[in-house]
C-alpha cells in the first residue's frame, strides 16, 4: 500500500472532551504529587480526582451527548454505547475514589501502604509510617486507569483498543501492589496480575495483527466489510485473529478459562481498588467486547459463537461452583464476579439490540453493588487488619446491625432476589437470550442453576452474619468517614431504586444500545 499523504486528523473536541478532562486531571495530579506539601496532599488529591471525574461526567452529559460521531481519524467513536459506558465509568470510579479516600483517622488513605517501594516488614517501612508518608499517587493512577477504560470503550480500531487496554492495565498493576496490610500477598497479586495481563495483552496484539493482515486495516468497520466481501485468500487469518483478540478481552473480563488471576488479585489488592477493578474494569472490558463482537467481527460470528457460548457456560458454572468453597470474603466476591461475568456474556450472546441494553444495564447495576460491597468489606476489621476470613464475619449482624444489614442486602442483590437491581439486571440480560433461540435458552437454564448455587453462597454468608455466634470479640466495623459513607449509600440506593423502579435506567440503557458505525 503506498504511503498516504499526511493529513491532520479532525478532532471533535466536544465528543472527546471527557477523556481530555480526565487526562488533564491525571497530569495535574502528578504535579500535585511533586509540589504540594505532604500534609495537604491527600485532601487535594481526593478533591481533584473527584471533581475531575464529576466535571468529565457533566461535560459528557452536556456536550458529548450532543455530538455523537466518529472522530480522530476513525479511531474513536462516541456513540450511544460508548457514551453510556463512559458515563457509568465516570460515576462508578468517582464512588470508588471516595471509598479509596477512606482514612479511618489516619494520615493517608487507610488501604494503601505508606511507601510502596519499601520492603514489607523492614525498618524503612516503619520509618515511612512514622514520618507520615502516604501513597497519594494512587489517585492520579486511578485517573489514568479511568482514561484507559474510556479509550477502551470508545476505540474503533484495534490499535486504539490496545492502547486503551495498556493505559488501563498498567496503573491497575501498580495499585494492586500497594496494600497497607498483608503486603506480600498484595505484591504477589500485583506480579501475577502483571505477568498474566502481559500475556493476555500479547495475545490481543497478536490477534490484532492477524486481523490487520486479513483485512488490511485495524479499523473495526473495515474488518467487518472485509469479512463480507473478502475473496477468501486470507481466510485462514480471520478465525485465529478473532480468537486471540477475544482471549485478550475475556482475560480482562475474568471469564473461564482466563479467570485464574481474578481470585488472587481481588484478594491481594487493597479492598477499595478491588471494588474499583470489579466495577470499572468489567465495564470497560465488556464495552470493548461488545464493540468487537457486534461491530467488528459480527459478520462471521457463526465461526466463533459456539466458542463464546462454551466460555459463557463454563464461566457461570466454574464461578458459581468454586465460590462455594471459598473461605475469604474477597475471594468469594471474586468468584461471584466471575459468575456474574458469565451471566453478562449470556446477554452479549443474544446478538440483539435488547441484548446490548441488557448488558449495559447489568454492568451498571453490578458496578454499583460491587463498589458498595467492597466499601463495606474494607470497614470490617480485627486487630487493625481487615477481617476478610469468613469465620471473622460470624455474628456481625448482632454487633453491627446496620453494616451487616446493608451487606446482606447487597448479597441478596448479587443473588438476584426480586426488588433489587440484581434481579432486574439478570432479567434484562436473560430475556433477550431466551428470545434469541435454543442456544440462548440453554445458556439461561445453566445461568439460573448457577444463580441458585451462588445464592446458596450468599445466603450462607448472611447466615454467618446473623445466625452464628461470634468467634472473637475484637471484630469491629469501623465507622466510615463521610466520603465512603456517601459512596456506599449511593451504591445501595441505586441497587434499591433500580430494583423497584428500573424504568428510567432501562430506558437509558436501551436508548444507548445502538452502535454508530
Amino acid at each position, binding site marked *: 500500500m503506498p504511503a498516504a499523504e499526511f493529513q491532520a486528523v479532525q478532532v471533535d473536541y466536544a465528543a472527546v472532551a471527557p477523556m481530555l478532562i480526565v487526562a488533564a486531571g491525571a497530569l495535574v495530579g502528578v504535579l500535585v504529587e511533586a509540589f504540594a506539601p505532604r500534609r495537604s496532599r491527600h485532601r487535594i488529591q481526593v478533591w481533584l480526582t473527584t471533581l475531575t471525574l464529576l466535571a468529565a461526567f457533566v461535560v459528557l452529559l452536556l456536550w458529548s451527548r450532543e455530538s455523537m460521531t466518529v472522530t480522530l481519524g476513525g479511531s474513536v467513536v462516541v456513540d450511544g454505547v460508548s457514551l453510556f459506558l463512559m458515563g457509568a465509568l465516570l460515576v462508578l470510579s468517582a464512588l470508588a475514589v471516595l471509598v479509596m479516600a477512606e482514612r479511618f483517622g489516619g494520615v493517608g488513605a487507610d488501604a494503601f501502604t505508606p511507601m510502596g517501594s519499601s520492603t514489607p516488614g523492614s525498618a524503612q517501612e516503619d520509618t515511612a509510617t512514622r514520618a507520615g508518608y502516604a501513597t497519594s499517587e494512587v489517585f492520579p493512577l486511578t485517573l489514568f486507569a479511568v482514561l484507559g477504560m474510556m479509550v477502551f470503550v470508545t476505540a474503533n480500531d484495534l490499535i486504539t483498543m490496545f492502547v486503551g487496554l495498556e493505559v488501563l492495565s498498567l496503573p491497575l498493576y501498580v495499585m494492586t501492589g500497594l496494600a497497607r496490610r498483608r503486603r506480600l500477598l498484595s505484591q504477589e497479586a500485583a506480579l501475577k496480575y502483571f505477568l498474566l495481563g502481559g500475556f493476555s495483552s500479547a495475545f490481543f496484539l497478536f490477534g490484532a495483527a492477524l486481523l490487520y493482515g486479513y483485512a488490511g486495516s485495524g479499523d473495526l468497520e473495515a474488518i467487518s466489510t472485509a469479512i463480507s466481501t473478502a475473496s477468501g485468500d486470507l481466510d485462514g487469518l480471520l478465525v485465529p485473529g478473532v480468537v486471540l483478540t477475544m482471549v485478550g478481552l475475556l482475560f480482562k473480563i475474568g471469564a473461564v478459562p482466563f479467570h485464574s488471576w481474578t481470585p488472587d488479585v481481588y484478594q491481594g489488592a487493597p479492598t477499595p481498588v478491588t471494588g474499583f477493578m470489579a466495577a470499572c474494569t468489567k465495564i470497560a472490558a465488556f464495552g470493548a467486547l461488545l464493540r468487537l463482537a457486534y461491530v467488528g467481527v459480527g459478520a462471521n460470528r457463526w465461526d466463533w459463537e459456539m466458542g463464546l457460548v462454551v466460555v459463557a457456560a463454563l464461566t457461570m458454572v466454574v464461578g458459581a461452583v468454586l465460590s462455594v468453597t471459598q473461605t475469604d470474603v474477597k475471594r468469594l466476591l471474586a468468584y461471584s464476579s466471575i459468575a456474574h461475568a458469565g451471566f453478562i456474556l449470556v446477554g452479549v450472546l443474544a446478538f440483539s439490540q435488547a441484548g446490548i441494553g441488557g448488558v449495559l444495564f447489568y454492568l451498571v447495576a453490578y458496578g454499583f453493588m460491587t463498589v458498595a460491597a467492597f466499601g463495606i468489606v474494607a470497614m470490617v476489621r480485627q486487630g487493625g487488619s481487615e477481617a476478610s476470613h469468613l469465620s471473622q464475619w460470624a455474628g456481625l449482624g448482632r454487633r453491627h446491625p446496620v453494616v451487616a444489614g446493608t451487606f446482606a442486602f447487597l448479597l441478596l442483590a448479587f443473588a438476584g432476589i426480586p*426488588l433489587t437491581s440484581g*434481579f*432486574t439486571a439478570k*432479567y434484562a440480560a436473560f430475556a433477550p437470550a431466551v428470545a434469541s433461540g435454543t442456544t440462548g435458552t440453554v445458556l439461561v*437454564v445453566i445461568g*439460573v*442453576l448457577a444463580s441458585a448455587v451462588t445464592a446458596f453462597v450468599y445466603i450462607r454468608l448472611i447466615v454467618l452474619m*446473623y445466625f452464628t455466634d461470634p468467634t472473637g470479640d475484637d471484630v469491629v466495623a469501623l465507622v466510615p468517614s463521610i466520603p465512603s459513607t456517601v459512596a456506599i449509600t449511593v451504591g445501595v440506593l441505586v441497587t434499591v431504586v433500580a430494583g423497584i423502579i*428500573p424504568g428510567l435506567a432501562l430506558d437509558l440503557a436501551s436508548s444507548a444500545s445502538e452502535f454508530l458505525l
Partner: protein
Amino acid sequence: MNAVPLLTLMVVVPLLGAIVVAVLPGNTARLAKPIALGASLVTLVLAVLAVASFDTGSTEQFQLAEVRPWIPQFGVSYALGVDGIALALIVMAAILTPVCLLAAWNDVTEEGSGREKRYFALLLVLEAFMVGVFAATDVFLFYVFFEAMLIPVYFLIGMFGGPRRQYAAVKFLLFSLVGGLVMLVAVIGVFVAGPGGGDGFLVENLTGNLDASTGALRWMFVGFFVAFAIKAPMWPVHTWLPDAATESRPAVAVLLVGVLDKVGTYGMIRFCLQLFPEASQWATPVVITLAVISVVYGALLAIGQTDMMRLIAFTSISHFGFIVLGIFALTSVGGAGSSLYMVNHGFSTAGLFLLAGFLVARRGSKRIPDYGGWQRVTPVLAGTFLVVGLSSLALPGLSSFVSEFLVLQGAFMRYRVAAVIAAAGIILAPLYILLMYQRLMTGPKPTFGEAEAPRDLSLRERVVVAPLIASFLLLGFFPKPVLDLVNPAVERTLQFVGVSDPTPALASGSDQ
C-alpha cells in the same frame, strides 16, 4: 368496579404496619404487638370489604382489578385482581394472620423487645407478600412476590426457629430458589411466546395467546410446574417441609404450610392450567400419579412420626396430594373441591399447629411420647385438639370432609384407579390423627413432680382457637358461600383448558 384500590391497600397496610413496628423506639416497644395486630385486623376488614364488593356473576375473570404500567420495557405491569379462588385464599390469609399474631403473642417475649419487634414486623411483611402473590395478575409481578416472599420466611425460620433452624431455613430457601429460578426461565419464555408489548405479562393477554411450538410450551409448563410442586410440596420434592415446619415457631409454620404452600396449588390453577392447556392435559397422567403417591406416602409417614410438628407436616403433604389430584382431574367438581380444600386445609392445619404449639409451650417438648393423659390436666386443650384433628381427618360435618369428598368424586369421574387409591388416604388419616390424640391426651394422669401442673387454655388461646373451630363447623355444614365464590372461577379455568365434565349428570350434584 371499585374506585378504592382495595387489593393494593391490603398489601400496603401490613407493610406500613411492619415498618412502624420495626422502627418503634425502645421505650414504646410494648406498642409493637398491638400495632401489628391492629394492622392485620385492618387488613381483615379490607378483605371483608373486598368480598362484599365481589360479584360472583361477573363476566370479567379478574375483579377489583388495578392495572398500572410498572416496567413497560419488560412488558411488566403492576396488575392486581382476584377471581373467586384468589379471593378465598386472600380472605383465608387475612383471617389466619391476626390469629397467628395472637397465638405468637408470647413467643419471643423473653428474648428482648428488639427481637420481638423484628418477629412481628417480619410476620406482617409476610402477610403483605401473601396478599400480593395471590392478587397478582401479571406473571412477572407474581414471580416477584413469589421470590420476595422467601426472604421474610427465611428469616422467620432462621432467626426464631428451633435448634436446627439454620439447616431448615437454608434447605427451605434452596428448594424454593431452585424452583423459582427454573420458573424464571419459563416466565421469560412465556413473554417471548406471548404478544409482547408494554403489558405483555398480563395473564389475560397471555391466556390462549402463546405462540410457540408444542414442545416449547410443554417445557414452559414443566418450568412452572416444578416450582409449584416444590412449593406445594409434592412427593418427591417435599423433604424441606417437615424440617421447616418443625423448626419454625407454630405461628410461622401455620403461615408457611397453611398459606404459603397454597401458592403452589394456586399457581397450578392460575398459570399451569390457564396458560398451557395442551401441556396440562399432556402432563396429567404424571401429575395424577405424583399426587396419589403424595397422598399415600404423606399419610404413611405421618403415622410413623414421633415429632408432632413433623407429623402435621406429613399430613399436609398428604392433603396437598388431594388438592393436586382435584386440580388435575380437570373436572368442575374436582376443581371446586380442591379450591375449597385449600381454604379448609389452611384452617385445619392452623388449628393443629397452633394447638400443638400450645402443648409444646406447656411441656417444652415436641416429642409425642413425652405426653400422655393430658386430657385430665388440660381438658379444653384436649377437646379442641380433638375437634381440630377430626376436621383434619375429614369427619363428616366438619369442613375437610366436604372438600375431600368433592375431590374424590371429581377424580373418580375421570381417573377411577387414582381416586380409589387416594381414598386410602382417608382411611389412613384417622390412624395418624387418632393415634396422636391417643398418645398425647389419653392414659393415666401425668405427674409433674415438683413443677406446677400446666394450666388449661388461657383466654388469649381460646380466642385464637375459636374462629378456627367456627370455620370448621360453618364450612362443614354450609360450604355454599365459598363454593359459590370459587365455582365460576373453576369453570372458567376448565374452559381455558378446553375440557368439559365427562358425566355432567353427576357433576351437578356438587352445586346442591
